[in-house]
């Protein structure tokens, strides 16, 4: 019945030009944003959130999903042609995409990336339809204790995975985000915390300015301070392979990359870049020709592109069912859902039972639009890469300012955006990842309200934090994630012999 509703909604969307046209425009915009190095999917979604603020909810959400999918895909264009990932999610694509382009197979690489991104997205959409309701049901078992742990676990695992060289920096960024989110009136007693009598701070620090600041401004500053401009060479070559045969040959690779990436997407805050790397690594391990990886392997390109787009679907699942974002662009999507009066979380399937299927349908339609646009207009669109960064980046800064101001009409938010932008720049300079900071900022209010609610319910006893089954699992998972980075277990065999 629910699947039938999903398919019907997909059909209706294709037949509704009033919805389809904005979705087409948003997908186009997403591809452009993704293609331009320095503009990320997060920025694209954030900027469009401001622009679509006055739109009907379904149109706005559909457009944001389209820009998200489009941007993650669009980044593959520059990754293949310039060896510069358009978004961090396309970093793994450069490894095989650029060698393919260099060897005169750019056209093949571009088309394979388009097809695989489309297949990855469809796997993501299928998982939204099938997994989100299951996770939603599971989330109904969550009490305040579990939500408290979920926030801590989310920040910890996100910190670990986004700062693999030094997880401590990831955790610091996450805790800093959690702490800064405590500014403003508290949710239970309405006590003003860290407001210093400033009325503007009573409502807390808004999410969107922080997101635009942390992701947008550092990119602008970094791009403008750079003295060398990337060389743009737009040569495509001719297609010589059968794409159907490529799909058939990579079927296991596609399914594995898609499913693993969806699971990575479900993990709070981790995102598409990690998914692409994991998919790429698994593909290399499972390949019969691992030596070709990094030299222009279609298997590698398939894994990376299928992985990053499948992860988008995975990242949306916890947004809908737990109100916890699976990636940075999903965090903006979550903020947009709140702005439009949708309350994601465990009660969403009860309060709005069809919404999950509508989102999956938007996702599917967006994917089809992405593939069509990708196959038809990407090549002429690549000319946009010729715009010099010093002209483009100031325009992006103005858009950040206008987008931030448009939400609530307060200059205060613009200053917050800039302040967090500068903070984000220095965090990046010190190699502190932005994702756990943002995730912490989003999960902070949830952690605070639930920790205190739990303590009130149990008269101050912290026992249930460790004795309730799901709480215990989340606690152990948190400890395991932290400990696994520092405790080196003996690995038998060759290492010992050495």
């Amino acid at each position, binding site marked *: 019945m629910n699947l039938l509703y999903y398919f019907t909604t997909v059909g209706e969307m294709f037949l509704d030009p009033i919805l389809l046209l904005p979705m087409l425009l948003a997908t186009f915009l997403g591809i452009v944003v993704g293609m331009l190095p320095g503009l990320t999917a997060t920025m694209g979604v954030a900027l469009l959130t401001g622009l679509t603020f006055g739109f009907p909810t379904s149109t706005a959400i559909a457009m944001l999903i389209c820009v998200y999918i489009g941007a993650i895909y669009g980044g593959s264009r520059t990754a293949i042609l310039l060896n510069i990932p358009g978004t961090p999610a396309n970093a793994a694509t450069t490894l095989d995409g650029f060698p393919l382009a260099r060897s005169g197979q750019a056209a093949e690489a571009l088309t394979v990336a388009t097809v695989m991104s489309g297949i990855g997205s469809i796997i993501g959409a299928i998982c939204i339809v099938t997994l989100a309701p299951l996770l939603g049901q599971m989330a109904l078992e969550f009490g305040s204790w579990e939500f408290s742990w979920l926030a801590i676990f989310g920040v910890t695992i996100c910190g670990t995975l986004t700062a693999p060289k030094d997880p401590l920096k990831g955790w*610091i960024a996450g805790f800093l985000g959690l702490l800064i989110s405590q500014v403003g009136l508290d949710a239970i007693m309405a006590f003003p915390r860290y407001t210093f009598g400033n009325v503007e701070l009573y409502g807390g620090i808004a999410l969107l300015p922080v997101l635009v600041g942390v992701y947008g401004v550092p990119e602008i500053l970094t791009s*403008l301070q750079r003295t060398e401009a990337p060389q743009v060479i737009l040569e495509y070559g001719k297609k010589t392979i059968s794409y159907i045969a490529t799909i058939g040959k990579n079927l296991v690779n596609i399914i594995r990359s898609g499913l693993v990436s969806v699971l990575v997407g479900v993990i709070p805050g981790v995102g598409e870049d990690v998914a692409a790397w994991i998919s790429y690594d698994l593909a290399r391990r499972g390949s019969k020709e691992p030596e070709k990886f990094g030299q222009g392997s279609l298997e590698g390109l398939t894994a990376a592109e299928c992985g990053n787009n499948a992860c988008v679907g995975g990242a949306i699942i916890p947004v809908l069912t737990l109100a916890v974002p699976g990636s940075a662009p999903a965090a903006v999507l979550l903020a947009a859902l709140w702005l439009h009066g949708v309350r994601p979380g465990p009660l969403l399937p009860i309060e709005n039972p069809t919404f999950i299927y509508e989102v999956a349908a938007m996702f599917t339609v967006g994917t089809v639009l992405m593939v069509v646009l990708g196959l038809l207009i990407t090549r002429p669109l690549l000319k946009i890469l010729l715009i010099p960064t*010093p002209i483009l980046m100031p*325009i992006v*800064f*103005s858009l950040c300012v206008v987008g931030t101001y448009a939400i609530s009409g307060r*200059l205060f938010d613009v200053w917050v955006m800039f302040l967090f932008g500068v903070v984000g720049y220095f965090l990046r300079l010190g190699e502190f990842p932005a994702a756990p900071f943002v995730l912490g900022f989003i999960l902070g209010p949830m952690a605070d309200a639930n920790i205190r*609610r739990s303590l*009130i319910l149990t*008269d101050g006893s912290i026992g249930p934090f460790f004795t309730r089954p799901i709480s215990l699992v989340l606690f152990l998972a948190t400890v395991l994630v932290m400990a696994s980075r520092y405790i080196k277990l003996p690995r038998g065999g060759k290492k010992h012999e050495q």
Partner: protein
Amino acid sequence: MTTSNLKKDLIAGVAILIVASLFLIGALLMPKDNIYGLYAYPGITPLALSLGLVVMALVLIFRTVNKTVLEKKATDFSPPSQSEEKNFLTSVELKRLVVVILFCLGYLLLLGKIHFVVLTSIFLALLSFIFYRKQVLIIIATSVGTSILIYYVFNRIFLLPIP
């Protein structure tokens, strides 16, 4: 790890320690009386979080100091020479960064005081011209055109407020 990275980590560790300590003091000063409930005391979460952050910042600082000491022992460590310091302070990238930040600050300060289209056109044209001293006419045309486009799309078509 290079000396400059260690220096960066040390500065970051100290800055985070200061921020976390300020939050910690703020949490301790929050009211704990019965009106707010013994366990719902507003400062309890910030207290726990800031304590966690203080511990992590201390770990970062001690780890960095230890590494610095080890590096000093391993190699004949000498502080960066004057020329190195000078290079760091006067590097082109640093200059460019300062210019961008100053321009952005100026733009934000003047927002709302000068008409959006005029201010944004000047901001875009000047910033683009500083870093890309070619095709002046194209820069001016792009700046003015983009400002007008942003203004009309946001304010006139989508009826959103513009600073």
